């Protein structure tokens, strides 16, 4: 028996060795990502894509092989693996050199300000006019401190307030998006509606950090100033004050983003009025959580403040040996009007092309069945124009996560506000030793 296993094992090992040896047909393009979203977009919409091999690599028309390195985001895993690959970029084999990698807004500047990314205008020779239809905020996020554009995105991710039509009908007497918006278009009105919801036995929001981004995206200063001191913006203090009030009065359900209570609150038995969600959240996450019973029971309104949440940017890695191909992928998948429009029609996702989106917004036949036929694209357009992302910092990820973690204990009543601040600095300084507490 043992011998059989040994033979089988050796055969498997030999097979793997041979399997590795047969991919030397043409250039190799290496793309690093943390999930398969871009991979799917690439396979569905990149015109030169031909087929996928059994080992997960893709073949393009000119014979180029596209190799995907997908490392999950958990526990900073994606960035750790990426950093290591970028540090070894110069000594890596031509076929292993990173050509493109994806980044998220919260840590975009980490890579954008570094030498590991290429200036897409100067180094890749992309005509700036080709990117005219993209939203300015999506460019601001990937513009380095020296003013160089280092990446591009196929999505814009403006956020809205998604609410349950049945609860709106019961408490506000209407489920019409315009009329609901009139009830919640300032924070003061939003708070008043929250009190009504509580009165009627519902929650206004699900978790402590649901509204966080609607505040943090409107900061007047970056999180960290030029002398490495952490600056607490007044809107962050507003968020803390509002969330504490909501928690003490049971206006929220005490959940946290992505936890099981939060997901269940979006389901058929949920008693939560609404969720702050951006483009992808409504069509993927909320629709998934709401299930069949919730289909058609949701609508979107702009809410009290404009914000964005999420989004993915494509960057070109320094040392890439496929500049022309990288340029072509960027132009086709983030700036081509027809492709952008088709992605939105197929997936309901909101793409980064103003005039394509405008056409869909003006199309009376276009709408989301999940949202009861509402044309959410029209609302996203207004919201996207209002986003300003000039005040991001390379430390946003650690600081945004840190403040949500530290203040959860304050909202639940486990610690005082002063202790929560101490914990916040403790968390952040362990992650970034250069940051200082401002006196």
């Amino acid at each position, binding site marked *: 028996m043992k011998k059989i296993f040994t033979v089988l094992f050796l055969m498997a090992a030999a097979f793997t060795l041979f399997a590795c040896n047969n991919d030397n047909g043409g250039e190799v393009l290496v793309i690093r990502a943390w999930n398969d979203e871009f991979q799917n977009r690439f396979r569905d919409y990149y015109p030169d894509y031909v087929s996928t091999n059994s080992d997960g690599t893709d073949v393009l028309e000119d014979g180029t092989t596209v190799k995907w390195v997908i490392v999950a985001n958990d526990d900073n895993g994606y960035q750790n693996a990426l950093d290591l690959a970028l540090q070894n970029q110069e000594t890596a084999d031509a076929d292993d050199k990173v050509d493109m990698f994806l980044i998220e807004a919260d840590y975009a500047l980490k890579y954008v300000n570094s030498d590991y990314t290429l200036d897409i205008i100067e180094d890749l020779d992309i005509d700036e006019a080709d990117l005219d239809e993209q939203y300015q905020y999506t460019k601001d996020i990937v513009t380095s401190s020296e003013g160089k554009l280092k990446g591009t995105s196929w999505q814009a991710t403006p956020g809205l307030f998604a609410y349950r039509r049945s609860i709106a009908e019961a408490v506000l007497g209407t489920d019409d998006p315009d009329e609901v918006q009139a009830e919640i278009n300032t924070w003061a009105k939003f708070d008043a509606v929250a009190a009504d919801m509580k009165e009627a036995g519902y929650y206004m929001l699900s978790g402590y950090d649901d509204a966080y981004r609607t505040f943090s995206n409107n900061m007047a200063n970056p999180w960290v100033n030029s002398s490495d001191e952490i600056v607490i913006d007044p809107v962050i203090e507003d968020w803390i004050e509002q969330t504490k009030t909501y928690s003490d009065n049971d206006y929220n359900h005490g959940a946290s983003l992505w936890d099981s209570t939060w997901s269940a609150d979006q389901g058929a038995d949920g008693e939560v009025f609404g969720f702050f969600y951006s483009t992808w959240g409504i069509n993927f996450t909320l629709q998934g959580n709401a299930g069949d019973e919730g289909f058609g029971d949701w609508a979107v309104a702009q809410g009290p403040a404009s914000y964005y949440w999420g989004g993915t940017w494509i960057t070109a890695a320094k040392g890439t040996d496929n500049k022309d191909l990288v340029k072509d992928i960027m132009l086709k998948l983030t700036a081509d009007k027809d492709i952008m429009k088709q992605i939105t029609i197929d997936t309901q996702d909101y793409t980064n092309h103003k005039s394509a989106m405008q056409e869909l917004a003006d199309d009376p036949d276009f709408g989301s069945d999940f949202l009861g036929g509402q044309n959410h694209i029209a609302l996203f357009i207004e919201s996207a124009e209002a986003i300003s992302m000039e005040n991001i910092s390379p430390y946003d990820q650690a600081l945004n996560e840190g403040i949500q973690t530290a203040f959860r*204990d304050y909202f639940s009543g486990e610690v005082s506000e002063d202790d929560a601040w101490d*914990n916040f600095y403790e968390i952040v300084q362990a992650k970034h030793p250069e940051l200082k507490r401002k006196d």
Partner: protein
Amino acid sequence: MKKKTNKLNYSRYGIYFIAPFFIVYIIFSLIPLLSTFYYSFFEYYMRQGIMQVGPNFIFLDNYINIFSDGILFKYAGNTLIMWLMGFIPQIILSLLLALWFTSTRLKIKGTGFFKTIMYMPNLVMASAFSMLFLQIFAANGPVVNMLMESGLLEEEFNFFEKVITTRSLIALMNFLMWFGNTTILLMAGIMGIDQTVIESASVDGANSRQIFLRIILPLLKPIMLYVLITSLIGGIQMFDIPQILTEGNGGPNLATKTMIMYLHDLITTSKNYGLAGAVSVLLFIVTAALSFVVFRAFKNNDMVDIEATARK
């Protein structure tokens, strides 16, 4: 001369056979260990997580920082409290079970079966176990629902929002995972005790309490010490259970953040090799000191045994 060339030198085969271990040990253990000591005297991290700072020699500044801000000691306190919360019930239950299973008077049937069952939790990966607890004790999870249906809980309760409940869950998991192991160790210790001593004591009219307190417990001391110290060393390295149960936050109020979780924070985002090196060196010293205690205790005890036999 002729004779010498014919003689096979077998000793070099011995060296060949042990060489792989030493090569692997030097590359993967010794060099990292020494470089940890080395970098603990440097300022060496990634600014914004990507731009290298240092290495600048700063001698003891990392150590001075650790002792002056005291954060590590707070986490050491957390670790110790959670370890004690798990260890005290564990040693009591294990001792009781070990006594029952080895008792010639009780003659419990199927001890092999129970030993296997008790050891089972140790075979589950700690991270998987932790994920399971995270689901079971979630605010809308089965435990809360059961408590609410039975009327024990008035309203929804979040176990992970209170320091005491979160710490208790971590201690409970450590307890469940390790009590079987401790029981088996203690059983081995008890079975190693000369049965004639226990028999003669009972012939002389000693009751079971006296036998336990006067005979078994004193003779079990070295095993107890071994269990204590190995468990303490394991406790110092507590990481995966709290890390996963609190999703890396060490919450609430950072009261479940252990020393290794702190080390993890230092190294993941800004790769702070300097400060993390200093923390590791301190942990190394404590662990080495504890191991030394075990080593000494066993050495002394053997000598006592030998002396005792010699005196007979």
